């Protein structure tokens, strides 16, 4: 690993000033489970490392209001094991429980998972479906963007070089909404997902009155399956509707071929998983 200078800022503002000072040569680190792998491999060679896990007050889960607030450096393991969060938003707890191994989850943070902006990031599709927002801190203070608009491509986000992610905000999902999340990978817990799908639907009197569907590793960014959603909304909650919507996911997605799987395989999996996730909502009481 190439040598670098190391900083432990004591506040988000101090982290911002370090980013302003060192620009592109600096890289933020939190859990390090993505960045350090790349630094060891030599594909990332930052001159300055700013450890935001050292910033006090960025590691919290606040379930007191209608919007759950999770500090950016909260570990995935803390999310997976939060009893309070399980009551208010079992969906994100389920995602965290399926996230990598316990050992990696003890290190990796929810903010890091988003900022790394992997199309396959575990939290991407679920947070899109949950209408979550990302709070970003920069020179002019904080701004908030929907997670859906946070990603701009593989490894890139709407954040400026001098900004950092400070909080994830998740509106408490209505209890009546049905949810399903499926992560498909080769090694069940320790590998990147080949495809993930998250769905949140509201079925009333046998009709899909609301439907949100998103996929990971199916598109250059976490993908909101808008065509599938349109095919579900205000339609009868039947297997035929689900089949039609899932088929549209296959059309909309454009996954890559890599060492893990071919694009064709991923398209087929995206279709199968979407169908399966929606059917499980249909069949749950």
């Amino acid at each position, binding site marked *: 690993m190439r040598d670098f200078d190391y900083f432990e800022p004591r506040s988000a503002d101090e982290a911002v000033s370090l980013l302003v000072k060192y620009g592109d040569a600096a890289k933020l680190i939190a859990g390090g489970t993505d960045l350090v*792998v790349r630094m060891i491999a030599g594909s990332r060679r930052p001159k300055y490392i700013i450890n935001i896990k050292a910033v006090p007050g960025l590691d919290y889960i606040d379930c007191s209001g209608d919007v759950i607030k999770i500090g950016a450096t909260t570990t995935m393991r803390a999310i997976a094991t939060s009893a309070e969060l399980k009551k208010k938003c079992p969906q994100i707890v389920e995602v965290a429980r399926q996230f990598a*191994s316990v050992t990696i989850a003890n290190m990796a943070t929810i903010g890091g998972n988003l900022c790394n902006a992997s199309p396959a990031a575990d939290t991407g599709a679920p947070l899109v479906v949950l209408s979550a927002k990302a709070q970003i801190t920069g020179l002019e203070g904080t701004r908030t963007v929907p997670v859906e608009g946070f990603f701009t491509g593989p490894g890139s986000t709407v954040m400026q070089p001098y900004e950092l992610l400070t909080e994830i905000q998740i509106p408490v999902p209505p209890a009546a909404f049905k949810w399903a999340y499926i992560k498909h990978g080769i090694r069940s817990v320790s590998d990147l997902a080949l495809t993930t799908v998250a769905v949140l639907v509201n079925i009333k009197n046998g009709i899909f009155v609301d439907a949100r569907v998103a996929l990971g590793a199916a598109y250059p960014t976490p993908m909101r399956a808008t065509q599938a959603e349109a095919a579900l909304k205000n339609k009868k909650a039947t297997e035929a509707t689900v089949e039609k919507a899932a088929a549209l996911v296959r059309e909309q997605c454009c996954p890559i071929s890599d060492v893990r799987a071919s694009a064709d395989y991923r398209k087929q999996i995206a279709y199968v998983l979407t169908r399966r996730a929606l059917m499980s909502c249909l069949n749950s009481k």
Partner: protein
Amino acid sequence: MRQLIRLIVNGEPNEVLVKPSDTLLYVLREKLGLTGTKHGCDSGKCGSCTVLLDDKPVRSCLTLAISVRDRELTTIEGLARNGDLHPLQKAFIENGAVQCGFCTPGMIMFAKAFLEENPKPREEEIRKALSANICRCTGYVKIIEAIQAAAKEMQ
């Protein structure tokens, strides 16, 4: 620039001179001579470098030593007490859970943290948790039996 940091390893404070780029794995093995922790995949996938940081398992290959200054670390060398092996170490020996032995320290450190959270695990829970650590010899059966035996012993 190198910095002098303090690491508390197996209850003992150590002053070590580190570069910010030194991983915890490197410092444990090459600066403190604690070679029980193994250097495997260097990418957080295999689990052979697992150590406990404030009693929680982490990958030492992906941890910058400088980021854990003043924190409590436990390695495989810290499990035996006054020459008596930890119940997990005994159970691994008695159940033949070791073949080449390379994954064993990581397995045992992970199992220690796992049993603290879940003292009476079901077999499938052990299997699921252990997918964090790769063993290329045993087929895992003996490792699972050893963890079950240790869980009983520790109750």
